[in-house]
């Protein structure tokens, strides 16, 4: 892991990964959307609304997956002052907020026809709304200080403490009575969902994951390049004697 702490090494790694992750994103979304919107059957109870599942469930999984990554990156940033971990955490937090917002919005659009309401204040929906606010809090806190290091530390502490919400989201459907259905894919026995729907769902989840990897690598590359440009400007302003060394092209 430490080897990729070096920004130059990271750039080589991301350069090698990006063609694969971006190709996977395009192909998986093409296949996944076709299956989700055309090839898969309507549900015998829910009719065509079941198609909302193919965007709602991957968005929900990503909301939690990204948060788990944010927690790890923040913990590494706090403990080892790992520069790349800080950059990665800052880069992924807005992405997690977007996935969570999508999860909430598509869930509402599914809830209205199937439950008869856009929203209920039950444990699952409320804990996911809380996740959304924690993401927003992270972004606000990370940018609230003139000293970026202080912002990073404060936001990292929030991310690590906020991780307590993840198991609450996961088990909320088992611990409390709720309109929301319990897990049907990640169960100890066989998934309670037919392969005709499971395969499109898993394809869409893979597409979301490939998309996340691609855009996250773009965002980290952008942050590293912006950092270098800022450092070079500071050196240049410090005077000709301290001018930035010429960089090999």
């Amino acid at each position, binding site marked *: 892991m430490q080897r990729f702490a070096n*920004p*130059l090494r990271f*750039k080589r790694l991301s350069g090698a990964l990006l063609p694969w992750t971006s190709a996977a994103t395009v192909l998986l979304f093409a296949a996944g959307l076709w299956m989700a*919107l055309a090839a898969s059957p*309507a549900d015998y109870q829910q*009719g*065509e*609304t079941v*198609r*909302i599942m193919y*965007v*709602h469930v991957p*968005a929900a999984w990503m909301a939690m997956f990204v948060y788990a990554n944010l927690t790890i990156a923040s913990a590494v940033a706090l403990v080892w002052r790992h520069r790349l971990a800080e950059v990665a955490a800052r880069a992924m937090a*807005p*992405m997690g907020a*977007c996935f969570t*917002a*999508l999860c909430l*919005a*598509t869930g509402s*659009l*599914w809830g*209205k*026809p199937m439950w008869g309401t856009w929203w209920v204040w039950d444990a699952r929906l409320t804990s996911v709304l809380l996740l959304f606010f924690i993401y927003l809090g992270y972004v606000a806190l990370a940018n609230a200080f003139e000293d970026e290091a202080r912002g990073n530390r404060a936001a990292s502490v929030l991310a690590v403490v906020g991780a307590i919400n993840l198991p609450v989201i996961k088990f909320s459907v088992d611990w409390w009575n709720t309109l929301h259905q319990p897990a049907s894919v990640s169960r100890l026995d066989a998934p309670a969902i037919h392969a005709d729907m499971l395969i499109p769902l898993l394809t869409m989840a893979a597409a979301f994951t490939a*998309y996340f990897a*691609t*855009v996250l690598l*773009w*965002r980290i*590359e*952008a*942050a*590293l*390049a*912006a950092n*270098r*440009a800022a450092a*070079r400007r500071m050196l240049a302003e410090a005077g000709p004697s301290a001018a930035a060394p010429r*960089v*090999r*092209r």
Partner: protein
Amino acid sequence: MSEYLAMGGYAAFVWPAYGLTVLVLAALAGVSWRARTAARRDDPGDGA
């Protein structure tokens, strides 16, 4: 075709769900790509 678009009477819920997803993911990718392009313009070197 119009029967397909009607989504069994649930068009008002299914299509906005997909539309929002495409909109948000495309906007996030677009913003991130432009930030990367701009940052690389400021820092064209191989950045050791």
